[in-house]
Structures are given as structure tokens and as C-alpha cells.
């Protein structure tokens, strides 16, 4: 069996004196969509930020494609094909939509590749094409989310991490976004790790899921099984 594309072992992360992750382990196989669900402050975002290099772990290991990335700076991790769309989108409000997308392809030197990827992204998110010369700060929340995802796609990643893609976005747009998430996984084979408060929607599109509580993994199973799990339903799926 192939080793998982992303392999997290006993990850311990602290904010100052406060321990946020108490040694969690999770893995994502190539081609999968995996979801992390859990309440506020459970440590979901912390996990993603540690993987992408924004935070350094106190202990434990993160392996990507068989290599240890725990000591790598964020830009190196991007170079290896792991992209993180952070919570709150973090689009560059002072740059245009097109420039944001170009920033996504920062590491790509070949202009024709960049142009091709831009066509692809503008194709799956047509609303961005309309606004391509606008400053990103003027976009609505949903459009910014699409821009953020599109930006991450520009670097042709193997692995994409999305932190709360549905937060604060109109339901119709959420539907579009999740359709695209499924599409990029299916058409381009991109592996996905999702963090979502909207557990229902996330588990619908995922293969597997992990439940995080107070910095610990309390449950992991196939997505369908989690959805029918009574406790999970009560806690996260609204009964």
C-alpha cells in the first residue's frame, strides 16, 4: 500500500505556554478528500498552519510525499506542491484579481504555463473573469473565496488545504465552491484536506473524516460512517 501523501504523527503545538495540539496523528492518502471537523478552538486551523509552515511544532513529525517538512519554511513547502488556503482568505486586497492569481503562480517561471492555469481558473470561476482587473479588496466574500482557491490552484499543487471555505459566504456560492472542490479532485487528482465548521457539507464531499476536540483526535472514520454516527450527529451535524 502506498504511504499516505500527508502523514502527521504525534504533533504537539503550543502558543506560548498554552498547548493547542496534544499530539495528534492523521494521514491523507493521495487522491482523497479528508475533512477535519470540530468545535471552535479544537485546533483545526492550528493543524493546517503547522503543516504549511506558518507555525513550528514543539514535537512530532509532518511528512509530505515521504519527506519530513517540519523544519521547512512556508515557501519551500509550497514549492513541494502543498498549498494552504488560509482562514479568512487573505487575498491581497491591494492587488488586482489577475495579480492575485499571478501571485499564486509565483514559483512558476514559464509564462505560458501561467497563462494556461489562469485560463483554467477563470474558466471554473467565471465571476472572477468579469472582475479580473478589479482590486481584490472590492470583491464580495464569496468571490474572494473563489479567488483564494483559484490562487492556490495556480501553482498546480498536488495537495490543497482549505480552511473554512464556507465561512461567511452565501449558500448558493458555497454550493458552487464545493462543486468545484469535487471537480478539481476528480479532474486533476488534487488531494484535499478540508477544515470546515459546516460539517454536513464537508462530509458529503469527503472520503474520510477526523473529529478534533480540544487538540486531540477523538474519532476517525469514513465520511459516510461519521455522518451516521449518533454522537457526531448530535455534536456537529445538528442532530
Amino acid at each position: 500500500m502506498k504511504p499516505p501523501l500527508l502523514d502527521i504523527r504525534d504533533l504537539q503545538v503550543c502558543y506560548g505556554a498554552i498547548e493547542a495540539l496534544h499530539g495528534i496523528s492523521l494521514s491523507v492518502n493521495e487522491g482523497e478528500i479528508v475533512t477535519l471537523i470540530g468545535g471552535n478552538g479544537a485546533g483545526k486551523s492550528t493543524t493546517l498552519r503547522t503543516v504549511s509552515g506558518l507555525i513550528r511544532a514543539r514535537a512530532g513529525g509532518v511528512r509530505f510525499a515521504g519527506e519530513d517538512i517540519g523544519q521547512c519554511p512556508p515557501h519551500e513547502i509550497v514549492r513541494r506542491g502543498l498549498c494552504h488556503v488560509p482562514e479568512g482568505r487573505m487575498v491581497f486586497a491591494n492587488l488586482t484579481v489577475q495579480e492575485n492569481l499571478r501571485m499564486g503562480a509565483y514559483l512558476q517561471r514559464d509564462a505560458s504555463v501561467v497563462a494556461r492555469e489562469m485560463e483554467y481558473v477563470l474558466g471554473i470561476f467565471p465571476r472572477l473573469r468579469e472582475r479580473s482587473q478589479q482590486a481584490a479588496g472590492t470583491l464580495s466574500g464569496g468571490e474572494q473565496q473563489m479567488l483564494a482557491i483559484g490562487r492556490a490552484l495556480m501553482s498546480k499543487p498536488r495537495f490543497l488545504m482549505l480552511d473554512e471555505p464556507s465561512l461567511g459566504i452565501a449558500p448558493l456560492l458555497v454550493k458552487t465552491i464545493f462543486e468545484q472542490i469535487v471537480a478539481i479532485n476528480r479532474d486533476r487528482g488534487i488531494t484535499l484536506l478540508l477544515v470546515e465548521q459546516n460539517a454536513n457539507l464537508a462530509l458529503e464531499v469527503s472520503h474520510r473524516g477526523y473529529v478534533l476536540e480540544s487538540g486531540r483526535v477523538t474519532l476517525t472514520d469514513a465520511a459516510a460512517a461519521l455522518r451516521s454516527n449518533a454522537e457526531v450527529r448530535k455534536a456537529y451535524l445538528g442532530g
Partner: protein
Amino acid sequence: MLVGVDFEPGTQGGPFPHWLNKRANPLPRSCPGDGWKVFVPHSSASARIVKVALCILPDTVAAHVLEVCDLSIQPHRAGICRRCWPSGPLDPLTVTEFLQQIVNGLALGAIYALIALGYTMVYGVLRFINFAHSDLFMLGAYAGALIAPRLGTLLPLGGVANALVTLVLAMAICALLGVLIEILAYRPLRDRPRLVVLITAIGISMLIEQVAQNGRLGFGPEVRRFPALIPDVTWHLGGVTLGSTSVIVFGVTAVLLALLTWTVKCTRVGMAMRAVAFNEKAAALMGVNVNRIISFTFAVGSALAAAGGILFALNFGKIDPLMGVQPGLKAFVAAVLGGIGNLPGACLGGIVLGVVESVVGGNPRLTSYRDAVAFAVLILILLLKPEGLLGHRTKEKV
């Protein structure tokens, strides 16, 4: 309207706003080409008010006022057609003199703009004021002073070419120095509170200045002459003199600004700089090597400061280890004036400040307050529009 009021020697010139006198008004008809000379017995407050009033009032009314106040009027003694101005420290600025101040101010402003750009770029990416920036200005000038003569002997270049090569070399040296300072002093403190970094910057600035002043380790505290690299040519355009150094200042500044704008707007690196300035973490997630971009920013900023230093030295002809202190502070004010973090703002701020300072400095009465102008502007702008002329207000998130 009376053109001006002359005083009997011994009385004080009043607090005339001299701009009143600048209006090119015809002399009173009764004056045969000369102005009025009004004798006022003493310089009491009421007399001062009278003097001011006489400047603003139309002629006929003024004549009545003079009668009422029992002041005598005599035609000007010398008989030469000249406007009468308040004698003493308040000399008038004619239109051409005013234009001259503007031209001088633009040259000064261009130099301030070059330095201000460095401040604003570093603030944009690191959110901190690099106090040591003004010392790179000074080091650039000294580098130029040391390189130029040696270059002259090595390569048979003409005056202007020699100057340009010197400029480029000095810019390169200071770019390296700036990066060195960043790596050694500022990078280790990236996560510390801003106060600590600010004080570190002050420490570096002090260190550079003190070493430079030291006779044994540095250049020595004395003022040195800067080699005259540009042939001294002056053009006269309708009463305004334009020196060759001013032309070089304008030219070099324009070229550098164009280069900078092109870099920031059209190149990959420039886009990365703008991204890092906006959100460092997000830029890192795009694969941007943030450290390298920050170093690059320092390099560019320092190179611009060095250019400013050499242009300044060309303009004024001398250099000393503390030459960067005042221009540095003023350039910083210019950066704040235009909106810190905003590149066009830094240019605008520099030019505005340069012109204002030049106009104030040109007026003999106010010339000693020349240095205080910058600080007055600073306080005004921070009180009225702290985000600067071209800046945007950002709300502090709770």
C-alpha cells in the same frame, strides 16, 4: 493700494505678512514713480496696526487714515523708482524670487523624495522606521567622495560620465550595506516588540555616526569638500537661475523613480514586494521567500538613499559624518506626509516639503525656523490626517 510702507530708521518693522507685499500693484498715482514713506513716531502696537492697515487699504482710504493718525507723508528721498518695503528683516519676495525658491525647493524635494522612498518601502514590508536609513545617505555621499577621484585616474571618463558611474557604484555599495544591516540586526529581532527594533535601529544609527566621526576608525568629524564632478553651468530663464547640479538632480531622480515604478508595478519581484507589504504570511503561502524580498527592499531603499546622498553632496559641495541627520528626519516627515507605505505619497511628500522649506528658508525673517518647518508639518499632518495625503485610513481591529 499702497505698495508698501517704509519706516523711519529706528522704528521696528512690524509683523507684516510679506506675501501682502508681493502683489504687483501699481504705485499710487500721486507718487512720481516712487513709493510712500510714512513716518510713524514710535513702534507701539497701535502704530503697528496702522502700518498693517496701510498695506491693505485702497489708496484714498489710506490717505485719510494717514491724515487722521496725524502721520506725515513724504516722497521717497532717493528719487529712484522703487517700491517701498518695510525696512529691516522683512524683505519682500518678488515673483521671480518666489519662482527661484520653488526651483530650489523642487531640487531639494527630489532629494527628500529619494530618501523618503527608502523609509516608506521598509515601513511597508516591516512596519518599522529604519532610523539608520539616514546614515546610508551619508555613507553614499562618502562612498562617492572616495570613489570619484580614484575612478578618474582609472578610467578616462568625462565629468558627467564619471559622476554617473560613481553614483551607480555608491548605490551598489550602500545596497549591500543595507542588506547587511538588515540581516545582522533586524532579522534576528523579527518577532520582538516594535519598540525593541526601533531602539536597535537608533543604536545602529548611532554606531555608524560615531564610527564615522572617529578620526582613527572612520572619516573624522571635519567637513570635507565633495569633488565637483559636474561642470558648473548655469542657465537663466527669465530671472530664475538653474544650475547644472539642479538639472542633474532632476534628471537622476526622474530616472530612478521611473525605474522604481516599473520594478514595483511590472516585475515579479515588485509584485512580491507589494504582496509582502500587505500580508507577509499570505505571501509566504504563495511560495514567496519573504526574507529575500525584505532584503531586496532594503537593498533598493538603501541604494536610493545613497543616490540622494550623492545628489545632495553635488548640490551643496560638502559632506560631514552628521550630514544625514537633518535630511533624514525631514525625509521621514515627507514619507509620513505622503502616507507611510505609499510610494507615490513619499514622492509627493518629499516635493511638498522641499518646496515649503525652501520658501520658508528664502525668507530672511523666517530662515532660522527652516529646520522647524518639517516638524511643524509633521505634527500638523499627524493631527489632521495621520494616514498621510495619499494614504488610506485603516481601522484598528479589536
